[in-house]
């Protein structure tokens, strides 16, 4: 029998190792798997490379992981936030390095990594500082840049519902990077508001098929970053 459900977020993240690359879903607070990130802070793994669109807000979730000094490198497109100085401080002190990637290139690098494509050409960033040093090639008279697919050791994803096979459906714009990160990580861990019986999710509407998911954990009432920040929470 296949049963990918684990009992707790602590169990779900127990084998994340020092030096691991971790893809963390979410665009701003939408889709941020806060409970998995907090479990990782408690677990203690460090020297992590983290892939996320942003660098977190306030002092919860991803920002708290960075503040705890666990992240040696961020790969992201928009490491700026109106209510957090956690990343700027770690970046300026040299503790956390930054690989800045255009948002669509980041998403496609993750998709390619998950699809077994080591590199691809894109028109994005030609002639800009973010295109410097990349191999350039002309197709049909237009210039493109060679960029590499991205894979990871782990992906943390937040979803509306999942089943023990790992089939996943998302909530609105919280879907964002979830489906492609699930493909690109060797171990994909999904926190779902509800873990439902196999067969309950309509096969026509499953967004991430279970083959891309290794672990599912139920977090019935997940926190929202903005609400924690408004309440003055700082994790741990």
């Amino acid at each position, binding site marked *: 029998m296949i049963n990918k459900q684990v009992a707790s977020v602590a169990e779900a993240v127990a084998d994340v190792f020092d030096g691991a690359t971790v893809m963390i879903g979410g665009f*701003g607070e939408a889709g941020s798997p806060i409970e998995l990130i907090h479990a990782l802070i408690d677990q203690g793994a460090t020297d992590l490379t983290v892939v996320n669109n942003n660098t977190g807000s306030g002092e919860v979730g991803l920002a708290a992981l960075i503040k705890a000094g666990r992240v040696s490198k961020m790969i992201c497109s*928009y490491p700026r936030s109106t209510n957090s100085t956690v990343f*700027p401080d770690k970046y300026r002190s040299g503790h956390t390095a930054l690989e*800045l990637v255009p948002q669509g290139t980041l*998403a496609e690098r993750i998709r390619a990594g998950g699809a077994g494509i080591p590199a691809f050409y894109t028109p994005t*960033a030609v002639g800009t500082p973010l295109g410097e040093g990349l191999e350039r090639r002309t197709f049909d008279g237009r210039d493109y840049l060679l960029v590499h697919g991205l894979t990871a050791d782990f992906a943390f994803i937040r979803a509306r519902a999942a089943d023990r096979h790992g089939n996943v459906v998302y909530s609105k*714009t919280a879907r964002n990077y979830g*489906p492609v990160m699930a493909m690109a990580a060797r171990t994909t861990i999904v926190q779902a508001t509800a873990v439902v019986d196999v067969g309950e999710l309509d096969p026509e509407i499953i967004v991430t098929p279970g083959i891309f998911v290794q672990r599912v954990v139920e977090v019935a009432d997940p926190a929202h970053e903005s609400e924690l920040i408004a309440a003055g929470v700082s994790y741990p």
Partner: protein
Amino acid sequence: MSERHVGLTRDEMAQRCALDIPDGAYVNLGIGIPERVAAFLPAGREVIYHTENGLLGMGPPPRPGAGDPELINAGKQQVTANPGAAYFHHADSFAMIRGGHLDVCVLGALQVAQSGDLANWSTGAPDAIPAVGGAMDLVAGVKTVYVITQHTTRDGEAKLVESCTYPLTGLGVVDRIYTDLAVIDVVDGGFQVVELSPGVSFAYAQERTAAELIPHE
């Protein structure tokens, strides 16, 4: 400061841009003045708004208290989904952008060069944290790129220039510029004035442009 009273207000610039959004278009609006364009779309046109974090059919902000933290736009503000809306993941969203499926995007600018080069993501200040988001993808892929910007900076520096001094977002990508002083097309020969705002002379606009303007007609 009194010079700011010459020419269009921010909302009037957005309103002027909205006149050029065709019926049936798929449109991505950038953060800031570009977002205001939606409020001025002429009656009778149906336009579908794309937000690159994963929604086609974006509607206006929710009523106070009715928002959902999992339904936001690219500026991370809460929005609504119109009837007929669709959600999708990031790689699909940027396939829409990079693949040339979107008709129009409207962006802000730090500088636009007469070749259509755009700089809008970084001033290159050494102590700044660089952040780019989806701007480079939008200008690389969307069929028509409009820019809305004040004609000059707060300090009176020209934003329409011969060549950009700030780091580029894309090469030769801008089609039309809406400023407080004029509507300007980027053509092979440079900046072609399409119309001047009420009360603005060609000489007045030219004085505030660091490249040659081509007169209307």
